[in-house]
C-alpha cells in the first residue's frame, strides 16, 4: 500500500505503512532530517511542517491522511548554499542556539508569511505560540520573522 503526495514541489510515492506518523516517514524513508522529534504529542512544535499551507505537527499527522496533499518541510525553504529569505534572516539574527526547534520555527513562520506577508508583531506572537524553544531565543526568532515581514524580503 503506497501513498502519493507532493513533497516540496515534487511528486513522491511513499511505501511506509499508512498508519505511520509523517515525521517518521520524512526522517526514515526519505532521510529528510530537518523536522525533529521533540515530544511526540503535539506539544512542542519541533516536528512542524506545512500541509496544504497550514502548519501541522508531523509527529501526529498520519501518512494515511496525506494522499494527494502537498507537504512542505524546512528542506523546501532553501539550503545551506542558497538559504531562503526566512532562513537568511534567522542566520542574520543568530536566532538559533542549540537549533533543535529551528526547523519547526521556520516552517510555522513560513506558513504565516505565505498567507499574511506583513503580519503585526502581535499576529506573529500569537501564530508562533505552539512552538517552544528551550534555549530561550524567542526574541531573536521574533526579530528574524519581523525582519522578513517588514524588510521587503518576504
Amino acid at each position, binding site marked *: 500500500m503506497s501513498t502519493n503526495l507532493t513533497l516540496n514541489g515534487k511528486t513522491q510515492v511513499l511505501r511506509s505503512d499508512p498508519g505511520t506518523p509523517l515525521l517518521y516517514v520524512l526522517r526514515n524513508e526519505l532521510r529528510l532530517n530537518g523536522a525533529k522529534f521533540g515530544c511526540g*504529542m503535539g506539544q512542542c512544535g519541533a516536528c512542524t511542517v506545512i*500541509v496544504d499551507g497550514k502548519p501541522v505537527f508531523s509527529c*501526529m499527522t498520519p*501518512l494515511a*491522511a496525506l494522499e494527494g496533499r502537498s507537504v512542505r518541510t524546512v528542506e523546501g525553504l532553501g539550503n545551506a548554499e542558497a538559504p531562503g529569505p526566512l532562513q537568511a534572516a534567522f542566520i542574520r539574527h543568530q536566532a538559533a542556539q542549540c537549533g533543535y526547534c529551528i526547523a519547526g520555527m521556520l516552517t510555522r513562520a513560513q506558513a504565516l508569511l505565505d498567507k499574511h506577508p506583513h503580519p503585526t508583531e502581535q499576529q506573529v506572537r500569537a501564530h508562533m505560540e505552539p512552538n517552544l524553544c528551550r534555549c530561550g531565543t524567542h526574541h531573536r526568532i521574533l526579530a528574524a520573522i519581523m525582519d522578513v515581514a517588514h524588510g521587503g524580503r518576504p
Partner: protein
Amino acid sequence: MKIRTIAGAGAAMLALTFGALYAWTRPAAIAPVTQALPAPAPGVLAAGARVVALGDCMVCHTAKGGAAYAGGLGLATPFGTIYSTNITPDPDTGIGRWSAQAFRRALREGVARDGHLLYPAFPYIHYTRMYDGDIDLAYRYLMSRTPVRTMQPANELVFPLNFRPLLAFWNALYLRPGETGTAAPTATPLARGRYLVDTLGHCASCHSGLNPMGGERKPAFRGGNIDGWDAPALTGLAHGPVPWRQQELVEYLRGGLSLGHGAAKGPMRPVTEHLATVPREDVEAIALYLMSIQAPHPAPEGARAAPLVSVATAPDTPGAAGARLFAAACASCHAASAPLTRINGRPGLALSSALQGARPDNFIQTVLHGVPWDPASPVYMPPFADVLDDEQVAQLAAYIRTGIAARPAWHDVARTSAKLRKETQE
C-alpha cells in the same frame, strides 16, 4: 396606480401598528446617574465577585481576546447573531449611567435603562428570581470594574425579530418575574444549590435546549446543543457507564476534569474556570442539587458489549481506516499503553463523555479544535482540523466509538464534521 395605493396604505397600516405596539410596550427610561459611586468596601467587592462568578456574567460579556465585561461576543442563536453588551461602567457605551434600580429592572424584567427590551440571550428569565442582595452586590462589583469604551457590532437578526418591541410577546410567554424584596432565606445546602443552578447559574439556558420560539424546553435539563456543542442532560448524570457521584461532580465543576468522564470542553470550560474561584461550599451545593434531580434509571440496556476491536477494524471498513489514523494521530497519548494515561489516573478514552454521548458533536469538536492550551489547566490537546478531513474524522469516529467505547456507531459524522468546521471557521 391602484396597487401602489393599496400597497402604500398597507405599509402605512403596518407602520402604524408597529408604532403603536412600540409605544405600548416600551417601558419608561430610568433617570441616569451622574455621580460616581464610592468604591465598595473589600467585603462587598469579594461578595460581588462571587455573585458575578456564579452568574457566569463574564463568559458571555467578554469577547475572545477582548477586555473583561466589555461585551462584543457573538452569540449564535437560531435567529441570528446577538452580540453581548458592554457591562463595564463606561458612561456612554457601558452601564456607567445605570442606577441600582435600573440594573435591578434589567435583571428582573429584561429592560435596559433607557427602556428598550433586551434579548433573552441575556438570561433574565432566570436572574429575575435573584435575591435583591445578590443583584445589588453584582451591581456594586460591576460598577467598580475599569470602564471600557467600546461598542459591540450590530446584532444580525432575521426580520421581524430585529424589532425589539415584539419581545413583549415573548416575555408574556416565558418571563415569570421574580419579586423585588426577595431576600435570601436561611438556605439549606439543597435550597442554595437549587438557587445556584436554576437562578444564578442559569444552567438550563444551555442544558435544556430551545423550542422553536427560542424558549427553554420543559421539563428542564433534558439536554441541549449550544455553539455546536452538546450540552448533556443534567437529569441523566446517574446513568451511563460510570454514574457521576457527588464528590466527582464537585471536582469536575471546580477543576474542569473528571477522572471517570473526561475534561470540560467548549462552552463548559469557562464555567468551570469561574466555579474554581468561588467557595467550595457553593459548588458542593450545586452538585447536591444536581444529584437530587436525577431521572429514574431508564430500562436496563442489557449487558454492555465488550469493545469489539476485531469487528470495528474488519478489513476495508471505515473502522480499519480509523484504526490506522488512530495509530499515528492519537495513540501516543490515548493508547491504553501510552505513558500519558498513567499520569494522575487520567480517564481512559473509553469513558470519555464525548465518546459515550448519543451524538458525535463533542467528539468532532474536540478532534477538530483540540483543547486549547491554558497554563492554569492540566488539560491540553492539539487541534486536528488541518490534519484530518471530514471523511477521516468519520473514520476515526467509526473506530473509536465502536472499537474503544463499545457503543453503537454514530451516523452522519462526516456531514456533522463539515458543518461544525464551517461554523467555527474564522
